[in-house]
C-alpha cells in the first residue's frame, strides 16, 4: 500500500512539475517584459503618519529606454525621469534643472517609496540572472501557484536569491520575496488584479514592501497599459525632459 502511495505521489509530482522552472521563469519574463509599452499608474506611498499618491505616465522601449512623467500631486507634477541604458536623469520643474542619478544615489528611495531607483533601473530578465528550481506547488489567493526558488548566477545582482509564487495557468508572479546573501528576507512584492492584456497576463496592482522597515509599503496601481505602441524617438532625449 505504501509503495502504491509513493508511486502515485511521484507520478503526480512529475505531472505537476512537467514544465521546468526555467521554462516557467521565461514565461514570466515574457509576460512582464515587452518591446515597448505605455503605462499610466498611481503610486501610493504609505508613510508613518500619512500616505501620498502620485500619478504618472511611463513610456518604455525594450529594456534600455524609459521615460516617466509625474502628473500629480501639484508638488511633483512635471517631474520627469529618463533612463537610457544604465544612466538615469531626473528633471525637476521647481528648479528647472536636470540631474543625473549615479553611483550610490541610485540606491536611494525613489520619490520616498519602498523602491530604489536601482530597482526601477533593473532591466535584465530573471532567467538571465538566476537559476531556478521548483520547490512546491500550492495555493495562493485562490490560485494554484508554483513556488520557485531563484539563485543568482551573476555577481552584480542586488538580491542573492529570490522566491517566486507563480500562477500555474497565467505565469504571472503573485508574490516575490527577495533575500540577502545571509537568507534574510529584505523585500516582498505582492501582485494582484491580474488582467488579460492582448496576448499576455499582467498584474495591475503591485505592493512593494521593505521587510526590514515598519510601514505598509508602496502600492502601485496601473490604470492603463498598452503594449507595442508607437513611441516617438525624441521622447528618449534629455531635451524632452524640459518640454
Amino acid at each position, binding site marked *: 500500500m505504501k509503495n502504491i502511495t509513493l508511486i502515485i505521489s511521484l507520478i503526480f509530482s512529475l505531472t505537476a512539475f512537467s514544465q521546468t522552472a526555467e521554462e516557467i521563469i521565461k514565461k514570466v519574463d515574457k509576460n512582464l517584459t515587452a518591446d515597448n509599452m505605455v503605462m499610466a499608474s498611481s503610486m501610493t506611498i504609505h508613510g508613518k503618519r500619512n500616505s501620498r499618491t502620485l500619478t504618472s505616465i511611463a513610456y518604455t522601449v525594450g529594456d534600455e529606454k524609459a521615460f516617466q512623467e509625474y502628473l500629480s500631486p501639484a508638488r511633483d507634477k512635471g517631474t520627469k525621469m529618463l533612463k537610457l541604458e544604465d544612466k538615469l536623469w531626473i528633471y525637476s520643474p521647481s528648479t528647472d534643472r536636470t540631474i543625473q542619478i549615479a*553611483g*550610490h*544615489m541610485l*540606491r536611494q528611495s525613489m520619490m520616498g517609496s519602498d523602491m530604489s531607483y536601482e530597482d526601477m533601473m533593473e532591466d535584465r530578465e530573471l532567467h538571465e540572472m538566476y537559476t531556478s528550481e521548483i520547490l512546491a506547488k500550492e495555493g495562493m489567493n485562490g490560485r494554484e501557484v508554483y513556488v520557485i526558488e531563484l539563485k*543568482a548566477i551573476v*555577481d*552584480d*545582482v*542586488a*538580491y*542573492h536569491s529570490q522566491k517566486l509564487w507563480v500562477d500555474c495557468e497565467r505565469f504571472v508572479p503573485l508574490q516575490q520575496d527577495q533575500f*540577502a*546573501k*545571509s537568507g*534574510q528576507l*529584505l523585500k516582498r512584492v505582492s501582485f494582484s488584479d491580474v488582467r488579460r492584456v492582448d496576448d499576455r497576463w499582467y498584474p495591475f496592482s503591485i505592493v512593494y514592501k*521593505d521587510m*526590514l*522597515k*515598519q510601514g505598509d509599503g508602496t502600492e502601485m496601481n496601473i490604470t492603463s497599459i498598452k503594449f507595442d505602441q508607437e513611441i516617438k524617438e525624441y521622447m528618449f532625449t534629455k531635451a524632452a525632459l524640459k518640454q
Partner: protein
Amino acid sequence: MLALKLAIRNLISAGLKTWLNVFVLSLSFVLLVFYNGMIDGWDRQAEVDTKAWEVAEGQYWVPGYDRYNPFTLQDAHQELTAEVQQMIATKQLLPILMREASAYPEGRQQSAVLKGMDVSQTMLKLPLNDLQNVADPASAVIVGRRMAETLDVEVGESFLIRWRDVNGAFDARMFMVVSTFDCDVASIDAGQIYLDIEVLREMCLMSDEASILVTDLEEAPELAGWDFKNNDFLLSDMKALIKSKRTGGYFMTFMILLIALLAIFDTQVFSVFRRQKEIGTYIALGMTRRRVVSIFTIEGATNSVLAGLLAAVYSTPLFIYLSKNGIAFGAMADGTGLTIGEAIYPYYSMGLIMTAVLLIVVSATIVSYLPSRKIAKINPTEAIRGKVS
C-alpha cells in the same frame, strides 16, 4: 609724573562718575578675555581630541574620496600594496575600511557608515579592543554614545544591519553592541558603526582593502596610489568654524567696548567744558597747551588702567575657577555636531591678556585725546572767565 598725579586726583574727585566708566570698561575687558579664552580653549581641546580620536598626524585617502560626499564612499577602497602592509605591520599606519549601510533598530531605518578597524590598534583612542574576546566577533560592533542614542540601543542589545558587497549584492544580519564610547569628536560618532576590519572585509568581499590610512608619523612619506592629507587640511574646516565664532565674539565685545569708550568720550567733552577755568589757570601759570592736553588725555586713559585693575580683582578668581572646572555645555554640545566637549576649559594666554590690555588702553587713550584737542585752541583769558563755548 605731575600729569599722572593730577589725573588720578581729578579722577578720584569725580567719584561715582569715574567708577561707572571704569566698571563698564572693565566689563568689556573681562568679556574680551573671557570670550577669546573660551574660543582658544575650544580650539586647543578640539585639535587635541580630533588628533587623538580621528586623524592622528594625518591620513592617506583613496583618490576620489571626499569625506563630505557620502556618494564617494562606494568606490573609496583599494588593495593595500606590500609597502603599505609593511607599514601597517610596524604600526605606522592604521587602515580603515568604510562602507555605507543601513541599520534597522526595531524597524526604523537609519543610514550608517560601517568602519572596519584593526581591533588591536592603539594609534587612536577608539576602544576597538572591546571587540576582542567576545563570543561572536563576526557579529560584534561598537558605537559612540550619540549613535547609541540615535539607534536607541544599549550594550548587549542587537539590531539588524544591511549592507552591500563589492558587487552590489545585499546582505543583512544581526549585530550586537558590545560597548559604547564617549568622545567629544562628533564626526567619529554620529552615524558610525565600528567593527573588526577583517570581519568587514569578509562581509564586503574586500580582502586586504582599505579606504583610508591613518598615520602617527610626523613626517609622513609619499605613498603611491594614496593622497596624503595633513592636519592643516584635516583640521581646516574645524579651525575655520572656530574662527567664525571668534569673529562673532569680536562684534559683541566691540559693542560693549564702544559703550565704554562713548562714556569716556562724553566725560572728556564734559570735563573740557566744565573745567575751563582750570584749563585757563594752567595755561596762565605757564603750562604749555600740549601739557594741558596730555593731562586730560592721561586722565581719560587712566580710566582704562583702573578698569584693568578692577577687572583683575573680580575676574581673576572667576577665570581660575573656569579654567579648572570648565564651562559646561552639556546636551547642547551634542546637537551641534561639532567637536566640542561637554565642558570647555578656557585657555587664557599671556598674549591674549596683553592684547586685551593694549587694545583697551590704546582705544581709551585715543577717545580721551580727541575731545582734549580743543584745549589747544582755547584762549586762556576767555577760559578763566568761563566764556569758551
